[in-house]
């Protein structure tokens, strides 16, 4: 069979691009401002930055606007933007103990250093549609902010504190131990070096940090439901801002700003194979850009699951987890199915037609049921 190269569609593509812009704008309402997206779609921005692999709130907001709120596409745009920029600095290791804590909870201990601070969360409210939001005005916003500010007496302000971690309590008692399996601990960068399996833990954590939240949740959930062995407890979940410092070209360590991160320390009981082995707890670690509890928790579950010696469930399989939670590659591959596959499909079609013809020729005419021959597949 020969291939025939065809071309065309340039005008249609151009017009489709213009049409999608028309659909975005056709109601001729006031364009959404980037600053509105930055301040009011905070959690979408956090997802897009995390999956795009770049912390840039202003560009994440722009990507969300451009892609009409599709966070997959927005993350794709952001990751492509990232590829156009030169990496000039590596930060000093960020220290989550320096975090300006905005949320800090534990499901393992009631009393934790500094107490349980719920922070900005909708965890404990009913998911009822708030119809008042439909008619929210600037005056409503100002009234809320004034009322909110009035809750604090400026004369009685507590000083900012940093808190010890819950895991410190377990560490002090010797209850928390490293997982203990011999694995590669070298620091790899999956943006510079293609991942190979088994992957070092650094590569796994990096891939999980920029994985898609829904994908991580699906596999983390599968592990908890029994298709895996990890059903941990939240040792501590923290969200807040951590300082970022780099060395400038003169060797000086410089503060350049802060990033918001969510950190999850997920505690699992270590299941030793030997009955005589002393039991202990080990940790699964989750850390991601922005406020994203689900992502950090599931990252922690999967970090721990992939270190399990049992490789017989999806969540324990490194390649399965890391390739299928990579949102941009998954979306790209899925969407490539929409591109022309004319030659491939025609080839398959020819084979099916030939098989039907061969079958028809081999069977005596009196036994052929005409209804099984699909008219559209008959040779033209």
């Amino acid at each position, binding site marked *: 069979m020969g291939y025939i190269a065809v071309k065309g569609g340039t005008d249609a593509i151009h017009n489709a691009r213009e049409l999608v812009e028309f659909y975005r704008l056709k109601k001729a309402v006031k364009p959404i401002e980037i600053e509105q997206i930055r301040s009011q779609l905070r959690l979408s921005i956090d997802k897009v930055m995390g999956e795009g692999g770049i912390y840039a709130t202003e560009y994440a907001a722009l990507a969300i606007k451009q892609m009409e709120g599709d966070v997959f596409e927005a993350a794709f745009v952001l990751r492509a933007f990232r590829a156009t920029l030169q990496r000039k600095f590596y*930060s000093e290791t960020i220290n989550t103990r320096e975090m300006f804590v905005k949320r800090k909870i534990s499901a393992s201990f009631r009393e934790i250093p500094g107490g349980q601070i719920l922070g900005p969360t909708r965890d404990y409210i009913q998911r009822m549609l708030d119809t008042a939001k439909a008619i929210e005005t600037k005056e409503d916003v100002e009234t809320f902010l004034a009322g909110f500010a009035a809750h604090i007496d400026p004369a009685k302000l507590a000083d900012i504190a940093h808190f010890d971690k819950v895991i410190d309590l377990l560490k002090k008692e010797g209850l928390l131990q490293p997982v203990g399996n011999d694995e590669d601990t070298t620091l790899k960068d999956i943006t510079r070096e293609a991942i190979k399996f088994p992957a070092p833990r*650094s590569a796994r954590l990096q891939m999980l940090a920029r994985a898609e939240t829904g994908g991580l949740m699906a596999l983390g959930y599968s592990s908890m439901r029994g298709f895996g062995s990890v059903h941990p407890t939240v040792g501590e979940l923290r969200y807040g801002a951590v300082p970022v410092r780099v060395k400038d070209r003169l060797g000086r360590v410089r503060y350049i700003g802060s*990033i918001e991160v969510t950190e999850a320390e997920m505690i699992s009981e270590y299941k030793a194979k030997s009955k005589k082995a002393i039991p202990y707890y080990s940790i699964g670690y989750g850390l991601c850009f922005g406020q994203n509890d689900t992502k950090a928790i599931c990252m922690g579950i999967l970090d721990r699951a992939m270190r399990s010696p049992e490789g017989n469930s999806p969540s324990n399989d490194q390649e399965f987890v890391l390739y299928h939670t990579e949102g941009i590659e998954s979306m790209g591959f899925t969407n490539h199915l929409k591109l022309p596959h004319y030659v491939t499909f025609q080839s398959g079609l020819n084979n099916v037609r030939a098989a039907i013809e061969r079958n028809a020729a081999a069977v005596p005419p009196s036994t052929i049921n005409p209804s099984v021959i699909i008219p559209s597949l008959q040779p033209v």
Partner: protein
Amino acid sequence: MTDKDYILCECELSPLEQFIASLEKDFEIKMAGGPAVCLTMIKAEDSVEGQPFYLGEALTTECEVLVNGIPGLGLCMGDEPVRSYCIAFLDALEQLDGPHTGRVDAFLQDQARLISEARTLEYNHILRTRVDFKLMEQE
């Protein structure tokens, strides 16, 4: 006093820009590079085993200026050309003696106070969400 870079990265842009504009006329300034955006790879580590890994990159702006021939480097996160220039300018200025020194220190102290006040206020709002556990028999 709080780290100068911290203050300059965290303060409001408008007063910083105005302050630098009030100083510029007394110096010969040449742009030596940028402002331009680039990336910083953020290094993190797991909190129990200390396993280092890369979390992702952060958009960063860098700028290099010469103030009376003295180089200054400005770095900050985000797409912030004006702020990075201001940081670079003050970085160079730090190495030059003169009557401006007192003004710069006063500006930094003032901004440090404003940042601290805003953060303390936010922190106290956050503290309102701290759980006050009571035993079931307590009211």
